């Protein structure tokens, strides 16, 4: 508890944190002033426990969005360090640039060699600037596509990690064909003759996530989201009020649970109370296990069956009636 003050606090955690801080100062007092505060402390501890449980077991979609953005949440780089071995990053799109916001490389997962793609977010300002806060430029998507094709050529399964607020909406990005780069990724990802397993580990923002964000399996962390539009932008469009993002989060049905219910996510990996940042190693281990299991399943399929079933999977998405 001594690190409460240093922890990054999400908006909705404020009442809990206030109570935790009060408890901590009481305990401090208790050390100094003797044991007469014990009863009060015990009561407060019970209150803190109850609030914590209530708060974290009844998370709203908007609260989950905040958890998905938590800076201490495990990011792609953490999975690369913890879940994979022998990681070799591959740089560049061979056309224009190398985009640090998009990781691409080769690695071992258990005894299996795979290609890994993932949006990258930093832990501090320097890293965040370097990774452009996880928002790729066209060259990031083109690098990803290049490595998809490399994986395809050499029969390496592709594992992708989603963690982006979206493709970067810059002026030069538009001029260099952000839409073209994403579209090309989508076409390529739909036709690679190797298994594709996608993991939503944090933010899954729109086309920038989708570019590496579908395949044969979609695994979502409990507090990851995946959405057609950011809640803030949705609220701006609907009400000209970004502050109504909480409401929009609910409407958009963007949580892992929503995706599972809609049949879009195949599996939801649970997180500890409060979010993956509370116990990254356990969460990352569970993700590694889930990915390996998915690859085991998919490895049994011949390539033709694999891409046929990937296509059918996509074709089945959508809700409409025939009059």
């Amino acid at each position: 508890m001594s690190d409460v003050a240093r922890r990054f606090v999400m908006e909705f955690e404020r009442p809990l944190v206030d109570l935790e801080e009060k408890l901590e100062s009481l305990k401090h007092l208790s050390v100094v002033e003797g044991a007469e505060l014990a009863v009060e402390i015990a009561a407060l501890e019970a209150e803190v426990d109850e609030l914590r449980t209530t708060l974290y077991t009844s998370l709203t979609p908007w609260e989950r969005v905040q958890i998905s953005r938590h800076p201490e949440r495990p990011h792609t780089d953490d999975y690369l360090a913890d879940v994979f071995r022998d990681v070799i990053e591959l740089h560049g799109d061979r056309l224009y640039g190398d985009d640090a916001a998009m990781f691409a490389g080769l690695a071992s997962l258990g005894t299996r060699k795979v290609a890994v793609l993932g949006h990258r977010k930093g832990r501090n300002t320097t890293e965040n600037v370097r990774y452009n806060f996880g928002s790729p430029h066209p060259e990031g998507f083109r690098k990803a596509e290049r490595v998809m094709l490399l994986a395809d050529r050499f029969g390496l399964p592709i594992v992708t990690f989603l963690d982006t607020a979206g493709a970067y909406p810059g002026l030069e990005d538009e001029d260099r064909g952000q839409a073209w780069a994403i579209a090309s990724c989508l076409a390529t990802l739909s036709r690679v003759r190797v298994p594709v397993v996608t993991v939503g580990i944090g933010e899954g923002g729109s086309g920038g996530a989708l570019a590496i964000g579908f395949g044969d399996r979609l695994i979502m962390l409990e507090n990851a989201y995946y959405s057609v539009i950011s809640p803030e932008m949705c609220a701006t469009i609907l009400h000209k009020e970004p502050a109504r993002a909480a409401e929009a989060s609910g409407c958009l049905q963007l949580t892992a649970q929503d995706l599972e219910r809609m049949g879009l996510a195949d599996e939801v990996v649970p997180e500890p109370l409060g979010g993956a940042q509370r116990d990254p190693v356990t969460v990352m281990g569970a993700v590694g296990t889930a990915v390996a299991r998915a690859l085991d399943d998919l490895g049994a399929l011949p390539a033709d069956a694999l891409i046929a079933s990937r296509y059918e999977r996509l074709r089945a998405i959508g809700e409409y009636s025939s009059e």
Partner: protein
Amino acid sequence: MPISDWFRAREQRRYTAPSEPPRGSESLADGVWVRCEGCKRTLYAGDLERGLGVCPSCGRHHQLTADQRIDMLCDPGSFDEIDGDLRSGDPLEFRSGKPYAEAIEAAQDNTGLPEAVLTGRALMGGLPVVVGVMDFRFIGASMGSVVGERIARAFESACDRRVPLVLAIASGGARMQEGMLSLMQMAKTAAAAARLADAGVPYVAILTDPTMGGVTASFATLADVIVAEPGARIGFAGPRLVERTIRRALPKGFQTAESLLGHGMIDLVVERGSLRETVIGLLVCLAAGGE
């Protein structure tokens, strides 16, 4: 048929048989007078209509309705709609802002269309094609399940029958009221486009004003040849978002067809008066090798 003859034929068809006005044609010809957003002049609606929605004064290419687009692209009477029975649901029961179910109903009433895209079989210069046209009046021609499904089926129909696909595209992007089901239509249509390309069947896209967001970032830009209309706004991120991101004014011409031509993103910018002829020329070339 040369394009001039065809225009004459079209005129005759339109003006000698006025008993049944084409579905949705009111948009441009709502009143007798309309205002051009390009030059701000007031135009006689009939003039604009006869000029295929191109302002006779400043050349601005106004949006066309789906029916007007079919009329200007396809051989007269050749369009045969497919999948016209598909209707959007309200899978998220989206209630923020205008309830989605109401928005669809209003769009249907306003346009006379079932959804934001019409797809069908047709002839262009005598060539059999599969054609799809989008209508921006229908919830900004955003891509929900029905748009995605009809587009995907159009790709599949072109693939199965081995006839070229021509899509006249306009869209504000994904349809957020369908949430992730909408986003995934990008992957679905892109996958269908990839299959058509792998089958070696031509696909020509006509990007019209505006083509933005998830549609630009999926099937729209996966065409073998991309033609755009003059002045059409084409991009991924909305210009206001880009402006907020870069914190300075956008340069003149940003995200226009002409600017993107210079940036290597599109093959041709073609005025509406030559569009049909150009597309037919492309189809004749692309279909020639298969013979």
